[in-house]
C-alpha cells in the first residue's frame, strides 16, 4: 500500500490497532452525538408533543400543522430574502477586503486586517442603538445633515426598513466572512495562478476561474455559515424590522416563546426544526458542489504568496478599507466611547459628563465574577471546540471512514437551529439527563453548550484549511516515522494554524456574547458576562454596558495581537 493510500485509509494502515482506531472514531461519534443529537432529540420530542418534556400531554402534529400557513410562508420568504441579500453583499465586500489585505501591496495591511474585523466583536444591541441614532428618519444625524445640506424634506436613510435590517446584519457578516476567508487567500500557492496567466488567461479570468475556484471549499462554507446565521439572526430584525412590520422566522419564534401567555414550545420547535431541514438541504447542495474535487493550494513545495502591485491604486484600496473601518467601527465605537463618559447614552451635555459608569463597572462584584467565569469558559470552550473541530474535520477531509457523513451532519446541526430554541433543547437535555452525573446547574453545563454551539464553525474552519493541504506533506511526515498524533499536531495543525487561530478567536467571542443558552443554563455563582450585560441593559444602564463593550474590544486587540505574534513565531519556526 502506498503512503497516499495509507493517508486516505488510515484504518487500514493501522491494521494492528484497527479496533483501537474504530473505538476512537466511535467515541468521537458518541461525543458529537451527545453534544448535538441529544438536545436536538429533545426538541424533536417537544415538536411532536403537546407539552414540553416532563409534562403530561399527548403526541400530535399540531406544531407542524400550525407551521404550515400562508403567513409563515411569507415570513419564510422574507427571512431567506433578507439573509440572501445581506450575505451576498457582505460576501462581495469581504472578498474584496480579503483580497486587498492578503494579495495586494496596500499600505498598513496588518493594521487594516485587525481593524476590519472589529465590528464583529461589538455587541449588536449597542451598534443597533448607535445606528438608531444615526439613521432614524426623524432626527437621525445622517438625515439631519442631509436635510441641512440639500433642503430636502425627505430623509435620506431609514434604519427602520428592509435596507436597515440588511445594513445592520452586514456589520457582523462582513468581518465574519473576511476572517474566514483571508487566511485562505494568503495561503494560496501563486504557481497555480501563474500557470493560468501563462496559459493566456486574463487576470480577471484567472481570479474567477483559479483563485476563486480553488477557494470554493472556504468560500462556500463561509457563505453557508453566514447565510444560515442570517436566517437565524434576531436582534437586527427585532429592533429595526418589527417597527416596520418586517417579520422573520426568529421574531415569530420569539413571539411564540416570550410573548404568548403560555409559551408555545410545540410550534416554536416545529418551526425551528422546519428551518433546520431547509438549511440542511443547502449544506447537501454544498456537498454536491464540492464532491470529488481537489482544492489543494498548500503543497510541499516552498512558495511565497504573490502580491499584486497596485501602484497608485494601492492608496485607493487603502482608502476603501479605512472607509469601511470608519463607517462600521469609528461611528458606533466612537459613540460607545463618548457615551461611556456621559450620564445618559447619546445625550451629550457638558453638565452630564461623568466617569460614574466606569466606577459602576469597577465596583460591581457581579461583573468581575461574570468576567472571570466567561474568560474561563471562553478559554476552555474555544480550545476544546477547536481541537474537537480539528479532529472531526480530519476525519471528514482525510479519511474514507464510512460513517463520516453522519459525523458531518451531526457537526452541522447546531448551526442550523435558532439559538433561542437550541437553548431550550440544552435546558431540557441537561436538566432531564438520567444517571448520576448532574450537569444542570453547574458551570460545565455552559461549557458543554458552548462547545456544541462552536463545533460547526470549528469544523468548517478546519475542514476548509485541511482541504487546502496536499497529502504529500502528511506522507513525508509518516515516511519519516512520525506517529499519527505527531503528524496531526506538527504538520496538519501547524500548517492550518492561521485557520485554527481565527476559528479560536471567533468561537471565543461567540462564547463571550452568547445569551440564548446562557440565560437558561447559568446558575447563581456561575453568571456569565452576556447575562450580566442583559441585566444591565434591561435596567437601562447603557453607560456601563458601553464600558463592558469597550473592555471586550480591548480584549480583541489583546488576543489579535497575541495570535498574530504566535502565528509569526510559529510560522517562522
Amino acid at each position, binding site marked *: 500500500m502506498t503512503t497516499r493510500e495509507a493517508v486516505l485509509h488510515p484504518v487500514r494502515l493501522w491494521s494492528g490497532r484497527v479496533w483501537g482506531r474504530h473505538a476512537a472514531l466511535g467515541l468521537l461519534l458518541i461525543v458529537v452525538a451527545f453534544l448535538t443529537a441529544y438536545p436536538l432529540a429533545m426538541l424533536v420530542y417537544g415538536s411532536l408533543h403537546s407539552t*414540553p*418534556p*416532563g*409534562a403530561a400531554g399527548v403526541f400530535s402534529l399540531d406544531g407542524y400543522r400550525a407551521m404550515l400557513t400562508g403567513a409563515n410562508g411569507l415570513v419564510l420568504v422574507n427571512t431567506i430574502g433578507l439573509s440572501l441579500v445581506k450575505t451576498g453583499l457582505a460576501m462581495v465586500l469581504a472578498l474584496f477586503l480579503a483580497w486587498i489585505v492578503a494579495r495586494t501591496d496596500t499600505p498598513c495591511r496588518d493594521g487594516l486586517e485587525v481593524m476590519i474585523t472589529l465590528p464583529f466583536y461589538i455587541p449588536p444591541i449597542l451598534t*443597533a*442603538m448607535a445606528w*438608531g*441614532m444615526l439613521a*432614524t428618519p*426623524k*432626527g437621525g444625524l445622517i438625515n439631519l445633515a442631509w436635510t441641512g445640506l440639500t433642503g430636502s424634506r425627505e430623509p435620506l436613510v431609514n434604519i427602520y426598513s428592509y435596507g436597515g435590517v440588511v445594513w445592520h446584519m452586514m456589520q457582523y457578516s462582513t468581518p465574519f466572512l473576511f476572517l474566514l476567508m483571508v487566511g485562505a487567500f494568503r495561503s494560496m500557492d501563486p504557481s497555480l495562478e501563474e500557470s493560468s496567466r501563462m496559459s493566456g488567461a486574463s487576470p480577471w479570468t484567472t481570479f474567477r476561474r483559479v483563485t476563486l475556484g480553488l477557494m470554493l471549499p472556504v468560500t462556500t462554507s463561509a457563505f453557508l455559515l453566514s447565510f444560515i446565521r442570517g436566517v437565524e439572526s434576531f436582534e437586527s430584525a*427585532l*429592533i429595526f424590522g*418589527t*417597527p416596520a412590520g418586517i417579520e422573520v422566522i426568529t421574531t415569530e419564534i420569539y*413571539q411564540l*416563546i*416570550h*410573548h*404568548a*401567555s*403560555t*409559551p408555545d*414550545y410545540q410550534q416554536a420547535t416545529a418551526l425551528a426544526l422546519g428551518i433546520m431541514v431547509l438549511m440542511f438541504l443547502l449544506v447537501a447542495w454544498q456537498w454536491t458542489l464540492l464532491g470529488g474535487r481537489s482544492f489543494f493550494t498548500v503543497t510541499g513545495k516552498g512558495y511565497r504568496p504573490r502580491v499584486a502591485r497596485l501602484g497608485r491604486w494601492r492608496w485607493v484600496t487603502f482608502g476603501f478599507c479605512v472607509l469601511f473601518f470608519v463607517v462600521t467601527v469609528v461611528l458606533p465605537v466612537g459613540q460607545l466611547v463618548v457615551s461611556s463618559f456621559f*450620564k*445618559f*447614552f*447619546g*445625550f451629550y451635555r457638558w*453638565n*452630564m459628563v461623568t466617569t460614574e459608569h466606569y466606577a459602576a463597572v469597577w465596583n460591581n462584584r457581579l461583573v468581575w465574577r461574570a468576567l472571570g467565569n466567561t474568560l474561563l469558559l471562553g478559554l476552555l470552550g474555544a480550545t476544546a471546540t477547536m481541537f474537537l473541530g480539528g479532529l472531526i474535520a480530519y476525519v471528514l477531509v482525510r479519511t474514507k471512514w464510512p460513517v463520516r457523513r453522519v459525523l458531518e451532519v451531526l457537526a452541522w446541526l447546531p448551526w442550523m437551529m435558532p439559538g433561542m430554541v437550541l437553548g*431550550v433543547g440544552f*435546558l*431540557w437535555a441537561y*436538566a*432531564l439527563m438520567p444517571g448520576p452525573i*448532574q450537569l*444542570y*446547574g453547574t458551570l460545565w453545563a455552559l461549557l458543554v453548550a458552548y462547545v456544541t454551539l462552536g463545533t460547526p464553525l470549528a469544523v468548517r474552519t478546519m475542514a476548509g484549511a485541511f482541504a487546502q493541504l496536499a497529502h504529500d506533506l502528511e506522507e513525508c511526515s509518516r515516511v519519516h516515522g512520525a506517529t499519527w498524533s505527531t503528524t496531526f499536531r506538527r504538520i496538519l495543525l501547524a500548517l492550518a494554524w492561521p485557520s485554527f487561530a481565527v476559528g479560536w478567536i471567533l468561537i471565543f467571542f461567540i462564547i463571550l456574547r452568547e445569551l440564548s443558552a446562557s*440565560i*437558561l443554563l*447559568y*446558575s*447563581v*455563582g456561575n453568571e456569565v458576562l452576556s*447575562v450580566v450585560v*442583559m*441585566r*444591565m*441593559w*434591561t*435596567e*437601562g*444602564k*447603557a453607560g456601563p454596558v458601553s464600558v463592558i463593550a469597550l473592555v471586550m474590544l480591548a480584549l480583541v486587540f489583546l488576543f489579535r495581537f497575541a495570535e498574530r505574534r504566535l502565528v509569526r513565531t510559529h510560522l517562522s519556526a
Partner: protein
Amino acid sequence: MLTRRTLLRLAAGASVAGTLRPARSVAQDAAWSKVIEAAKKEGKVVVYNGAVGTPALPKLASAFEAKYGIRVEVLEARASELRERIRTEQASGKVLGDVSHNGSTTTALQLTDGTFQPHGSLPNAGRPVAPFAVDDHRVPIYVIPYGILVNTDMVKPSEEPKSWKDLLDPRWKGKILSDDVRALGGGAVFFMVSTQKMGKEFHEKLAQQGLHMNRELRGNYPRIARGEYPVYVPFTLPDTLDLKGLPVKAILPTEGLPYVRFDGAIFKGAPRPSAARLLLDFFLSDEGQLAYANLAFMPVVGGLESKIAGDARGLVSEMKPKLLGTTDPKLQDEMLKLAKSIYK
C-alpha cells in the same frame, strides 16, 4: 334585648378571648421563631427574579442578609424563561430555586400549572391594603404604574396630554412612540387595562394616530429625550427618578394608571422552604417594602409614606390614588389577539 346574664356571658367570653389571644400570639411567635431558626440553618435562599435588572431586589437582599444572616442569591431571566426553567427543574426533581419574584400574570399562570406550594402562615400576611391581599400561595410585593412621557422641549405645558383620551387629538398623529401593545410587557398591560376601562373604540381611534411601536423599552426614553418623538406610552412611572436632568416629564393621566403587580411565591419542592417563607414575610415588612418604595415602586402596605425617601415619596403619593387596574391572566390571549387585529 340584652339581659344582665347575657352581658355577663359576653363579658366572660371576652375575658377568655382576651387571655387566649396573647397565648395564641405567643404560640405563633414560638412557631415563627422555629421558622427563623430553620431558615438560618438553611443558610441561603435562591430567588428566581423575572423583574430583570431591578435595583430594588439587591437592596432588599442586603437588608434581609443584615437582619437574618441568610444569603439571598438572585437568578434573573425573562418571565417565560424562568417559567420553563422551574417547570423543567420540577419535572426532573432537581429544583434549585426557592422563591419566585415575578409579575402577577406569570405567577397566576404558574399557580395554575401547580408550580407553587402554600407558604403557610406569615406574621405580615395581614399588612397589604386593598386591592392587594395575600392568598395561600402568593404574596403581593410591589406595583409598577404606567403613565405618559413627553419631551418638554417639544410639548408646551398647555399642550400636554392630561388624559389617555387626549392622545386621540390629531396633533399627535405620527408623533407617538409606543411599547408594542401586541407583545407581553408594558404595552400589553396598557392595552388590556385601557380596553377594559375605556372600550376597544379607544384603541381603534388610537391606532389611527399611527403609533410607532417597538419592543426596545430602554431605548425609547433617549429617543423621546432627543426629540425624535414628543410622546411615549406607556411610561414606567418609577423610571422618572432615573431620567432626572433630561428634558422629559412624566404625566399621570386623569383616567388613572394601568399597573402591573409583582408577586412572591414558594416553589414546590424548594430546597430551602423555611428561608423562602422568611423572605416572603420580609417582602411585606417595612424594610422590605421601603426597598421598593424608595425607588418609587408602589408599596402594597399602607402607612409608609412618611418613611419613603426623597423624590420617591411625592411620586408614590401621587400615584397611589390613581391606580386604574391590572391585567387579567384569563383574558391575556384574547387581548393579545385583539391588539393584533387593531394594530396591524
